[in-house]
């Protein structure tokens, strides 16, 4: 049944108040930004907060500015639509802007926010189902059940990292700022996530994501390439985020490649990264670096499309994402 359960709705006017309410209600509370992830999940009873804290009226979360050092700071409540049309982003952050545009539909992007997308719940074919369906499989460990149907012998949950922006912001080494009672703290994007379908975030529940800061434009180039069945609105079954730092002669100084839609976090393609560093991006290197991503692409039966096929095309997509950094 697609109706929201009952809940209380809070509208704090600043971050301090928001954090205070979250702290006060503990496990009963959840923040809501655009609501495009939370509300459908609540309708399916995946998440059932009795206290929902809206961030709409928190002014500092809506800001967007280029810092004096050239970095771009984006408030968590900035909508994806605003971002995808922001000229500075289109000019200097093409890979990131592309990832934003690949998220769902224009309608969803009108409501969805960058903060919400960074914290998107992990997804799974055994989890993103109606209550009645989950009743029929006796649920799963991510919610109400005991086992993970993706790998019944495994002690952990294998739900999939499904945000389009996460692989690319991790690759770009963006920084993410949080507020809680103790004040502000900043994390490297990579450090916000961990490889567990349930505890996929390292932050405390009451910690409020306030801002994301993208590195200043420079000698690097990022790209994002998304694999899915329909380009209109499907979640990724593979999202390759790549970022390469080039020396003046074109030699790659540093390489970050993250695979989304494979594990419960944006997984680094370490062998690919190693191959790239110290070399120039030739067709041959691109092919080799792509092939090296076959091993980490341990696809499982938790998304749309065939497991084997997803593994086989991962190297091709990694290679194409690297090519887009040229």
């Amino acid at each position, binding site marked *: *049944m*697609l*109706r929201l359960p009952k809940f209380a709705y809070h509208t704090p006017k600043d971050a301090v108040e928001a954090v205070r309410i979250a702290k006060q209600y503990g496990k009963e509370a959840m923040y809501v930004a655009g609501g495009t992830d939370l509300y459908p999940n609540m309708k399916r009873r995946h998440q059932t907060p009795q206290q929902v804290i809206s961030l709409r009226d928190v002014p500092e979360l809506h800001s967007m500015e280029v810092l004096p050092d050239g970095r771009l700071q984006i408030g968590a409540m900035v909508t994806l639509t605003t971002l995808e049309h922001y000229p500075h982003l289109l000019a200097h952050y093409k890979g990131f802007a592309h990832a934003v545009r690949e998220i769902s539909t224009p309608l969803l992007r009108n409501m969805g926010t960058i903060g919400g997308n960074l914290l998107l719940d992990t997804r799974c*074919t055994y989890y*993103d*189902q*109606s209550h*009645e*369906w989950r*009743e*029929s*499989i*006796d649920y799963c460990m991510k919610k109400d059940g005991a*086992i993970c*149907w993706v790998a*019944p012998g495994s002690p952990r949950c294998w739900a999939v990292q499904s945000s389009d922006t996460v692989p690319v912001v991790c690759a770009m080494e963006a920084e993410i700022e949080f507020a809680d009672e103790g004040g502000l703290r900043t994390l490297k994007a990579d450090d916000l996530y961990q490889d567990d379908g349930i505890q996929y975030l390292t932050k405390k529940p009451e910690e409020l994501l306030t801002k994301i800061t993208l590195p200043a434009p420079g000698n690097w180039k990022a790209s994002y390439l998304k694999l899915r*069945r*329909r*380009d*209109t*609105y*499907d979640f990724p079954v593979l999202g390759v985020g790549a970022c390469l730092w080039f020396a003046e002669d074109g030699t790659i100084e540093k390489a970050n490649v993250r695979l989304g839609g494979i594990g419960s976090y944006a997984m680094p393609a370490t062998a690919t990264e190693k191959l790239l560093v110290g070399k120039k991006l030739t067709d041959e290197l691109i092919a080799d670096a792509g092939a090296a991503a076959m091993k980490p692409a341990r696809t499982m039966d938790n998304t*749309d*499309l*065939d497991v*084997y*096929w997803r593994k*086989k*095309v991962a190297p*091709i997509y990694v290679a194409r994402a690297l090519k887009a950094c040229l």
Partner: protein
Amino acid sequence: MVLDDPGLKHGAASPQARSDAPWQHDKNKDELEHIGKPIRKVDARSKVSGLTQYADDLTMPRMLHMKLLRSTMAHAELAHIDTSKAAEVPGVKGILTGKDMPMPFGILPVSQDEHALCPDHVRFVGDPIVAIAATEEEIAWDACRLVEVDYRELRTIGGVHEAAANEEPRLHDYGVRGNIHRLENLEFGDLADGFERADHIREDTFWFEGNTHLPLEQHASLAHFDKDGKLTIWSSTQTPHYLHRALARVLHPLPANRIRVIATPHGGGFGGKSDPFNHEICAAKMSMLTGRPVKVVLTREEVFWCHRGRHPVLMRSKIGVSKTGRITALDFHSFLDGGAYGSYGTASTFYTGALQTVTYAVENYHFRGARFFTNKAPCGPKRGHGTVQPRFALEVQLDKVACDLGIDPAKLRLDNLAPRESVTANYLRIGSMGLGACIEKVVEGSGWHERRGKKEVTKDGRIRGLGLACSSYLSGAGLPIYWNGMPHSGVQLQLDRSGLCTVFCGSTDIGQGSDSVLGWIVGEVLGINPLDIKVVTGDTDLTPVDLGSYSSRVTVMTGNAAMQAAERAREIVAKGVAKKIEVPASRLVFAEGRVFDAEDPETGMTFMEAVGIAEAQLGTIGTVGSYTPPKSAAKFRGGGVGPSPSYSYSATVVEVEVDPETGIYRVPKVWMAHDIGRALNPAIAMGQIEGSIYMGLGEAMMEEMAYRDRSHKGQRIFLHKIPSMLEYKSPSTLEMPDCVTYMIEDPDKNGPFGAKEVGQGPLLPIMPAVANAVFDAVDVRVDENPISCEKVFAAIQAKNEGKDARFGPALDATGIPDVDFGESLRIKTPWQGGDGTASNAPSRTKKAKK
């Protein structure tokens, strides 16, 4: 949509009427006034402005909301159901279980195997067990969660191979044996001789996965049993007449004449709302129990569970052809995964063997079909009912034959065309036949000869390919669902002095425009604006019986009935006017809202005045019309499925661009030609063609009614993979290609103004054309539908590894289940001197040993 395409010519140059055509009705009119014009639908503005009241928009005072508790087990006996906790929930007003409605029902008289609520046996995840009505939907849902059901699990039967291998446990205690629901074995002509004379024989195995209708509107019903003891149900049904019959059966002793079924405007049917459903019957019974109106709206998941969609079908086809590609023999096996209930399955089984002969002349033909019961949501009719899967097999196989013989696939088909005005090997009577013209159109439009086999590479490295396929579909089933001698469609017409003309007909507009068809036809005959005509349909209290919106029957059948009623009305009005203005009735013209003398157009009057004059002279004006299809040529048992007043024809060329590295492909353009007989309204007909292309591409590229089948520590879960709009993959606007649509107008003598069907036929050739186009691009065969990117990739890999460049079910004996079909029913073909009867009488039980 290419409105100005040169292929689309209609309007001024009306096709020549044949002397035997009943639709050549008004010799005084030079040109058709409304027919063939792109006028808007009678209900268009309410629909696009959001004012149409669908079933879910209806509400009544004191209305209760009903939810169904559905089985969470794929296969189980119900040991015990305890509803006591649910009954205590404040707001709960009524609870029903299987024992409250013990009478089984089903759409076909031969398979009355469903219960409104399962009394003791559940057969798929989603089978309903308990109905609860409460003051709020949430309360009913919460109360359902408090019902305790004690299941005794039974072994799950998961597909055709599993059903064939396991006679026990049986899903039903009827059918042929074990879990075989139907077995058909029909042999027309001399197969041995046909294969003997063949220069080339090939045998292929195909798999067509099931898929569902995916209507945007979820099923909904509102039932009200009033204080006078009369029951009214508003429901999103395509077949109010059949629902009426099912309600009368299950709600016995409530007589049928106290039950009123009103079909509400439709937000999509496609065959999925053609069965009487559990929720409809439960809502009615619940209203009788509580004395309050009861509403039920299914969730999206429940719509998937109602299903009645495309059967998964495994097929083996053996074809024999001469050196020049003429078909000498066809031996076709189909194995249908029917799901949990009979539904239309008996007809579906026959349909997998019926129409192969209608496109191409098949000299000798053997069809064997088996339908199995499995623990899946029941399959039934979806757009193209039962003929879609074998069409995929045949059209891909013909492409392979053409390839084997080095013949152009278009020529191979042109050389094999079934002749017009002929009777096929299986005794289907073909009238008009425009398939040749269809093929020529798409071949020309697509640049087939110049572009096929060229393997052009796009800027992004994809390889282009073109594929061609053809099809045929019926314009209405020749026989009703239940045996009777009454008309298939009735129309009643009322005229009065205000100039009002109201058409009453039991038909249901499911979006295809059947209400508008009634308006256009009556408007044409009476010479009045179709948009001034009131159309009342789908109400069993008010409208004469029409069997429903299925099998593309409505335009032909209600159209003919409406024409008869309108001609009778015109006769009455003409009689009155003739007397008044003193000219012979035969000289009167009904056009432009006037009735006038053909020889002196100034002498005449408005239609309103004319009706008033006739009413004064002859009394209140009302007429009726009805239609019954012509008798079938087939007299053998099983010959009842396939005959139709006329057959439509389609040919398509599909262009694909395949990424050879990943198997991902897109479809940039489709050319479709459809032999429609006559387009009553070219804009609406084109909408049906483009809708078919869209739906066909969904089936070809991605749609799958797939099941999750996992076991863990002895527990097997077996249920629909992902019953949601997001994850049941269906194409969006981005996947919709440019369409070039051609209408071939070759009027058929059995259609109103020569019209034939258009709603289903153009879907059929899309899937095989996609498969053939993929082959043209990357030289691999995908003998399975959907032709998903994973399968294309796997076939490319096989090719690269030097293996058979194919993806599909095994070609050897393991590919199909081992089923004893028993002795065939042998029927001599017309050219063998046959008369449509069988020459033997095999044992009807078919309990042959395995």
